[in-house]
């Protein structure tokens, strides 16, 4: 393995300690410190000074996704966004909010909720920072109804490796002036720039959310029921299917009467062993769903995307390969958007790597991809975090080269692609 995981300077899952800014930025730049250091700027200008250094830089939010993609090599400086965690300007009547990139999603949601609003975005990692969530391109089950963060960001301030502070978009919900730098950074995993500030479009908090659950739904039925639901007029906000439990969970957000009516309509449409969960049951179901997606250290987590649908061939392949490798594979799938998250537990690194390799081949054969969000120690030596490179990788390389010619931001993150 090349270099130590860069999160070594701070314990995984905890926010970075209040790092001291270098006493003399210029001296630090000309004479890099030998050991990794952590900086926690509180303003955009401090942030710019922090990244305008020499050597590799790892940008850190809450530290919930430091293991996503390939490990970063030789990070000399960790720049923590923990000190940039404020709401700068919430305009409830405009339904927009301007925040610093380091604000945690759960903190933001709590603040918005006081005004009867929310960001309609439910990734499993609610303690992650908003900038980190953009950079990881994460999305949760309710993306079906509300889109992902890329659809909710209306403005961004980025700090690029050369220290340039650049904005795109603005405070208005409709805007086509200039290129969209926020979209560029969606999925960039800290390799292009730091998300210093974001302006987001928020929504009214739905009065009610209801969840209907169907048990004993095999893969073919999951697919059939999903199509039936998404093509009906009942507008579910999420449809999730879990394996091996074989449950299909359908969520409805809306007015009290409206959500109830739609949940009732769903019950009459679906067949099999049906139940509408009460608020407590629904809460714990979605919590456990998120916990499966996040998993635990020592697990391997694969994230796959295919065209919409839950492909019986892929689900079958997953369990067959898992059996062969002697590991447990726990799947959650958003069939309507073709997103799969697989938590792998049990056995050893070799078995995990074997499963990743084999299942990845199956997914790639149907035009999808598999990336690693987490892996058991040792897996990296046996299987790449990224699979077959997409055709657009050449453009990504050029983008990376133009913004970060010295390859300082999270070097290695997209290995072996670039």
């Amino acid at each position, binding site marked *: 393995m090349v270099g130590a995981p860069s999160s070594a300077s701070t314990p995984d899952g905890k926010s970075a300690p209040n790092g001291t800014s270098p006493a003399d930025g210029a001296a630090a730049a000309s004479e890099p410190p030998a050991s990794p250091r952590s900086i926690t700027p509180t303003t955009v200008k401090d942030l710019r000074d922090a990244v305008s250094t020499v050597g590799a830089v790892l940008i850190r939010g809450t530290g919930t996704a430091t293991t996503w993609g390939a490990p970063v090599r030789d990070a000399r400086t960790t720049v923590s966004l923990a000190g940039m965690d404020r709401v700068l300007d919430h305009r409830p009547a*405009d339904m927009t909010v301007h925040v610093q990139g380091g604000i945690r999603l759960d903190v933001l949601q709590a603040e918005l909720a006081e005004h009867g609003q929310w960001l309609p975005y439910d990734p499993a990692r609610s303690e992650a920072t908003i900038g980190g969530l953009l950079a990881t391109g994460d999305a949760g089950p309710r993306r079906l109804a509300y889109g992902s963060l890329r659809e909710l960001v209306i403005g961004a301030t980025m700090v690029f490796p050369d220290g340039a502070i650049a*904005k*795109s978009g603005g405070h208005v919900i*409709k805007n086509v002036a200039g290129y969209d730098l926020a979209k*560029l*950074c969606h999925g*960039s995993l800290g390799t292009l720039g730091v998300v210093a500030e974001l302006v987001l479009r928020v929504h009214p908090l739905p009065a009610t959310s209801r969840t209907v659950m169907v048990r004993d739904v095999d893969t073919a039925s999951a697919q059939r029921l999903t199509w039936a639901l998404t093509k009906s*007029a009942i507008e579910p906000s999420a449809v999730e299917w879990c394996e091996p439990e074989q449950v299909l969970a359908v969520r409805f957000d809306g007015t009290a009467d409206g959500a109830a009516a739609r949940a009732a309509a769903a019950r009459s449409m679906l067949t099999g062993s049906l139940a509408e969960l009460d608020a407590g049951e629904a809460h714990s179901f979605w919590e456990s769903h998120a916990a499966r997606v996040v998993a635990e250290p020592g697990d391997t987590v694969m994230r796959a995307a295919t065209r919409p649908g839950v492909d019986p061939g892929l689900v079958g392949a997953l369990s067959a390969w898992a059996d062969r490798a002697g590991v447990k594979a726990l799947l959650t799938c958003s069939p309507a958007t073709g997103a799969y998250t697989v938590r792998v537990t049990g056995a050893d690194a070799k078995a995990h790597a074997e499963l990743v390799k084999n299942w990845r081949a199956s997914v790639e054969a149907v035009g*999808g991809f598999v990336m690693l969000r987490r892996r058991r120690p040792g897996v990296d030596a046996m299987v790449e975090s990224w699979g077959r490179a997409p055709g657009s990788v050449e453009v990504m390389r050029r983008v990376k080269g*133009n913004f970060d010619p010295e390859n300082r931001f999270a070097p290695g993150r997209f290995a072996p692609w670039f």
Partner: protein
Amino acid sequence: MELQAATDRRRALAAVLRDVSAECGPSLRVLSGQAERRAYETDALTAHRVLPGLVLLPADRSQVAPIVRACLRHGVPYVARGAGTGLSGGALPAESGVVIALAKLNRILDVDPDRMVAIVEPGATNLSISAVAGEFGLYYAPDPSSQVVCTIGGNVAENSGGAHCLKYGFTSHHVLAVETVLPDGTVTVLGSDDIEAPCYDAPGYDLRGVFVGAEGTCGVATRIAVRLLRRPEAVRTLVADFPDVPSACETVSAVIAAGIVPAAIEMMDNLAIRACEDAVHAGYDRAAAASLIIELDGHGEECAELFDQVSALCSEHACTRLRIAADEAERAAIWAGRKAAFAAMGRLSPEFLLQDGVVPRTRLAEALAGIADLSAAAGLRVANVFHAGDGNLHPLVLYREADGEGPAAEKLAADIAELCVALGGSLSGEHGIGVDKACSMPKMFSPADLTAMDRLRAAFDPSGLCNPGKVFPTPALCGEAKAGAYQPHPLEETGKIQRW
């Protein structure tokens, strides 16, 4: 020197023609005569005109890459063109450049009713997608008023919007993948890798998100995978009249603040109302200072519940008349009136300029008051018909060229756009920057912002040959800033499409 340059350009064009003819064969339509080329010298922003050197109409999408490669080989600039309805000069050719006209690539290649996805060629019109998807109860949501004729390729380039984008989002929210001939001549899918099996997610940078809205400067789209939506179960529409503009604006804010997301909220001021009513007799109140058209859609009971709330909010804000569409025919009449605004404007004034600025929704009243002040100071009338729900203004500056009002109108239009920026808004909500507003970009973006954007552009197009001179301010363009009167697209004159 000049002469030499002109000779070089002619030689380069001849070389492009020779190469593409050899590679693409006779099915590639070539327009090289001056009269034929003239039809491509402008889009709907007719004040800007540049005669292209060559117009190529691919008969098959495999012909696009050889064209781009030939242009690259011989250093010739090129621009993709859909229907030419763009309102910011996006499809304006470069001098002695090539126009790649994609109108013949207009097939709907696949509709997957289960996955709710369609794969289409770039020259397919916006409405043709919904026409085909309609067989399955599905439709393509973004609805620019030009949708009968504008192409999905143009929509992708401009990230086009429409009245119903308030609830459903803009083009960018509905495009899953774009097969692109990149400026280096390679064919690459942006978004998920296999355009025939498009995924919501793709690994790495969101290049599809960058391409959508890049105004044709990052390559030429040859296939596009779009999401389809199910038609809503219920649709309810009302017209609310108000005694003054601020009351209408406050109603918009109140609806938004109440947590209701209507499908559309459109606003007209008195000048626009009178003009539309005289032209179409849609039943608008000529005495109203302002009217709102508000539409809600969704699941039956919920839609009805929210619609009652909206009606109540209108009444609370001094609404003088509330007209609720009783049936589909009345709803169509209300929208027909709204969409007849263009024909109506023609009656009010021989010439007008159209702006497209956006302001935060709580500042609509302020923006309209500011526009009224600027209008009074300039001594020119301004009519307003616009997407109030998302703060996207469409002020029409009315003037008479014959009376020498042109320069004052241009100044007023630019002042209005910049007023929007000063109010914390944007130069453009849906029409794009193109050449039209490139010179105002520094009012909205700092040099660092523009440099970052230019870096991104250079990653796609290091040669700078793909639709040059757009979006970014250039000395050549902004040194001799010019704008001009709007002239109708031929299809508008026949009433087939409307301006907003």
